[in-house]
């Protein structure tokens, strides 16, 4: 039954087997060539592709340094927020991924495209944040659909957390993505695009210390993106923590008092012995938390288009006439220049004539015969018109400058503007005109050409308090580079003069009387403590101009500004400062605000419970407009 092969068959079979042999051998040769092409000729390309498949470099953002108050209480720290980002090189079809992401998160697809387009020139391996501060729902949705979202990463990132609402907003500043202009500056070298840097306040001034250095880790992931193992890790270098000189209790008291008063403005409170800033505010403020995870365009537009300019740091960047708070400077100049003695008197009849022009005192009936102490207490304009006229503008300028006005305080916060105390030289240089002696009269009561910033007013108060040392206000006390808090060197004073004690005493007595002797600043009085101060009510425009302007611009606020400068206790002051109320109508209103700050300061010093935040009624503010009272008289006059 078996069919053995016949010779013919055998020959044909052998031939056909050979055909099969060669066919198979040929096929294998082709396969070998195919593998040679992929494994040898194009190896490098495929090796990279395999590496991209399975290796991910994940940034480990460095948390910014924490900000502490002067006793170590945390003021500004970080909290994890979740950003959703895309790594384009891991995404073959960006459009599809963005569509899926939009579906999963509810963020409009067009918005995602816009965000991506803005940074499309960056290398494709760099994560680009599409959704900042994602909600938990968005985060979970993205994680759940990670298979459909190749290249989308959802990682927790540290974001800034500031104290509730807008406390000390301008002091802390805010953070934001590094700008292209910043990137080009040498001190920003090594900062990657998209990094979060300080953009204002302490955040900006101390950015380099606060920022730290981002780390990274390289991980192996499988096809569904699960991390399998870590290849290497460069831990982030955490930013330095900074201890501020800020006193949280005083800061809160300041904010509370402004909130109760309802006025805008600025206040700076310092230790007159070393320049440490104890409290610092600028109103209206903003919420720095809105910037922490990227400010929404609508919120940014609202801030920048607000006529009240909430982003402006009024303490450093706004200049106002000091009004009557300037009078102690004029008085001290008169004493020091030997123009007057403490016993020098002037008779105030309600107005006085200088160079053919009538200058009114704020008190229509006049103060009668006043000496320096009474003149300061009662803020008599005529007395200081007279002394100013005797001094001349250049001597006023000299002493105002030595006390800290019309010069920069050099506080360690960015973008401080310089105020102005005029001089003959200044007028010659800027206006190419001669200074007229008649112009000095208004300057003597802090009106006219004088313009100062609230921070320089705090320095002025401190210089009067410490007897001539123009301290440099500063906000940073110590820094922690990871090895514990180390005090930073105190900035040296800007200048130092020795005011003779008896001359200083004359000024101080006047300022004590302002608060304690039935003067204009009685509301700042704190029982059992010798508070010294000076009120100032300064016109925004002259009465004559105000009438014309108010008719034209109905919505513009031309009400007077209110000032109060203070230091305490009288003999060995440990606190000094300036409170400024924009359109606050009266200096005494500012004294009401200062009162809460001082009451808080002394309550703590005495070990008493801190006073509760004042109500609006507690402040007993005076809303009567002196302009209306004066009937818009044509004469120039000062406040009190």
């Amino acid at each position, binding site marked *: *039954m*078996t*069919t*053995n*092969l016949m010779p013919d*068959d055998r020959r*044909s*079979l*052998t031939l*056909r*087997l050979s*055909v*099969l*042999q060669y066919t*198979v*051998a040929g*096929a*294998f040769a082709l*396969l*070998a060539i*195919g*593998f*040679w092409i*992929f*494994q*040898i000729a*194009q*190896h490098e*390309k*495929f*090796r990279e*592709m*395999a*590496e991209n*498949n*399975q290796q991910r470099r994940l940034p480990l953002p460095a948390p910014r340094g924490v900000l502490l108050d002067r006793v170590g209480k945390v003021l500004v720290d970080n909290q994890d927020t979740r950003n959703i980002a895309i790594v384009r090189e891991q995404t*073959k*079809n960006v459009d599809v991924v963005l569509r899926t992401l939009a579906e999963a998160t509810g963020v409009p697809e067009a918005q995602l495209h816009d965000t991506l387009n803005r940074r499309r020139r960056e290398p494709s391996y760099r994560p680009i944040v599409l959704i900042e501060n994602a909600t938990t729902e968005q985060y979970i949705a993205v994680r759940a659909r990670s298979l459909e979202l*190749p290249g989308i990463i959802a990682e927790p990132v540290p974001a800034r957390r500031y104290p509730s609402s807008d406390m000390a907003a301008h002091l802390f500043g805010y953070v934001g993505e590094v700008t292209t202009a910043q990137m080009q500056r040498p001190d920003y070298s090594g900062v990657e695009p998209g990094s979060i840097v300080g953009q204002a306040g302490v955040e900006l001034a101390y950015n380099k210390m606060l920022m730290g250095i981002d780390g990274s880790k390289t991980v*192996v*992931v*499988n*096809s*569904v993106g699960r*991390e*399998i*193992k*870590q290849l290497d890790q460069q831990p982030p270098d955490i930013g330095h923590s900074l201890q501020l000189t800020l006193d949280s209790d005083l800061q809160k008291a300041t904010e509370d008092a402004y909130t109760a008063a309802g006025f805008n403005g600025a206040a700076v409170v310092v230790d007159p012995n070393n320049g440490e800033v104890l409290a610092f505010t600028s109103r209206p403020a903003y919420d720095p938390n809105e910037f922490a995870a990227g400010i929404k365009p609508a919120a940014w537009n609202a801030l920048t288009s607000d006529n009240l300019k909430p982003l402006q740091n009024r303490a450093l960047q706004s200049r106002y006439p000091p009004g009557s708070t300037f009078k102690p400077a004029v008085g001290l100049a008169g004493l020091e220049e030997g123009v007057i003695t403490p016993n020098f008197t002037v008779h105030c009849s309600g107005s006085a004539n200088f160079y053919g022009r009538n200058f009114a005192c704020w008190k229509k009936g006049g103060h009668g015969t006043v000496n320096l102490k009474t003149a300061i207490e009662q803020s008599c304009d005529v007395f200081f018109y007279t002394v100013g006229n005797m001094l001349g503008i250049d001597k006023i300028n000299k002493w105002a400058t030595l006390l800290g006005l019309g010069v920069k305080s050099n506080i360690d916060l960015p973008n401080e503007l310089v105020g102005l105390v005029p001089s003959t030289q200044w007028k010659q240089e800027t206006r190419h005109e001669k200074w007229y002696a008649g112009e000095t009269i208004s300057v003597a009561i802090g009106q006219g050409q004088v313009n100062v910033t609230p921070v320089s007013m705090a320095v002025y108060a401190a210089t009067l308090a410490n007897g001539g040392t123009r301290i440099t206000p500063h906000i940073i006390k110590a820094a922690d580079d990871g090895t514990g808090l180390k005090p930073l060197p105190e900035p040296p004073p800007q200048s130092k003069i020795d005011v003779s004690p008896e001359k200083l005493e004359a000024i101080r007595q006047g300022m004590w009387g302002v608060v304690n002797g039935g003067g204009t600043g009685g509301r700042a009085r704190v029982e059992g403590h010798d508070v010294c101060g000076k009120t100032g009510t300064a016109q925004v425009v002259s009465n004559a101009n105000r009438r014309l302007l108010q008719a034209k611009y109905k919505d513009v606020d031309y009400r007077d500004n209110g000032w109060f400068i203070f230091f305490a206790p009288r003999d060995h002051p440990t606190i000094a400062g300036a409170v400024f109320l924009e359109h606050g109508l009266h200096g005494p209103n500012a004294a009401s605000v200062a009162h809460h700050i001082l009451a808080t300061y002394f309550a703590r010093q005495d070990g008493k419970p801190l006073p509760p935040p004042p109500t609006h009624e507690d402040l007993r503010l005076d809303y009567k407009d002196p302009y209306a009272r004066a009937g818009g008289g044509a004469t120039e006059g000062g406040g009190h």
Partner: protein
Amino acid sequence: MFERRLYFHVDWLLLGAIVLLSAVGVAMIYSTTYVTTANGGHPGSQPVTQLYALGIGLVALLVCLVIDYRVLAEHSLFVYGALLVLLVFVLLKGQTQMGGQRWIPIGPFHLQPSEFARIAVALILAMYFGENRRGAKNPGDLVIGGVLTIIPLLLIAKQPDLGTAVTLLPVFVGVAFLAGLRLRLLGVLALAGILVAPVAWKFALKDYQKQRIQTFLDPEKDAQGAGYQTIQARVTVGSGGLTGKGFLHGTQGQYKFLPVAHNDFIFSVLAEEQGFVGVLGALGLYLFVILRSLEAARLAKDRLGAYLVGGIISGFAFQAIYNVAMSAGLAPVKGITLPLMSYGGSSLIAALASFGLILNVRMRRFTN
């Protein structure tokens, strides 16, 4: 039945090569299914399963070796009938896994009858063309042989498992070619195939099958979808380089960028971990096995033996070449396993059993 002197005629070299390839397969399965975790890792369960299959397969090989192939061929109709029954059974009652109804559960095992179809078809075709004295010169005989092949092919394709189904065609072509199929006719068949292809494209192929062919032609078009496997196969192979990433150090298969790599893409993993050097070694072994088997066909005592070996080895060679090409992204992705190496008990057992037959033919070249 088994004479002692036959022992000396067993082709130990071929047997050695087969066992070696199977062992390499187990090792590659071990590496591919190794579970890496953050703190070390542990082997998967698949290599053990494959080792069991290897043991059973060697027993099957022995059985197919000791029984004279001529006795087996006499019962080829019975074997063929049994196959058809099983295939019909699978269609009616089989287990569904990975998109196909292919398995019959037998205790802890899952039998995949389609893997044994090549043996049954080779046996019956060798029997038919070997015994009829006319070989395959007569178109009528060719049609009968074709029908014998088409019936199980259609049953398997219906599962659907087109990949395994088409591996029956080279068995038929191999046997028919050795049995004297006129080359002109082969040409006509090829031409007919080309003409039928567009019709088949339109009516016979399922959407996923069309998609696989389309994406093979342009994998980048759908890189995250159907083209993914083709691209990843190339990345896997190409990233291996000359000497490979080393045993257990492959990333593409282990981290599942290449899906179910231990199955259809086992050769990709070998190329990744052992490099071009390993590829040449494995290809060399496969080539040796095929050429050595063709040698057995040449040495066969009778036409039955020669055709049987020819049919089996044609199917084997086609499978191996296609799978290796696919594993480098050089052919469209099809469910065609790499015989001897791919994970899968039925596939390994069937492959070993079929080599039992080849060894059988060579061993009995001097017997009557």
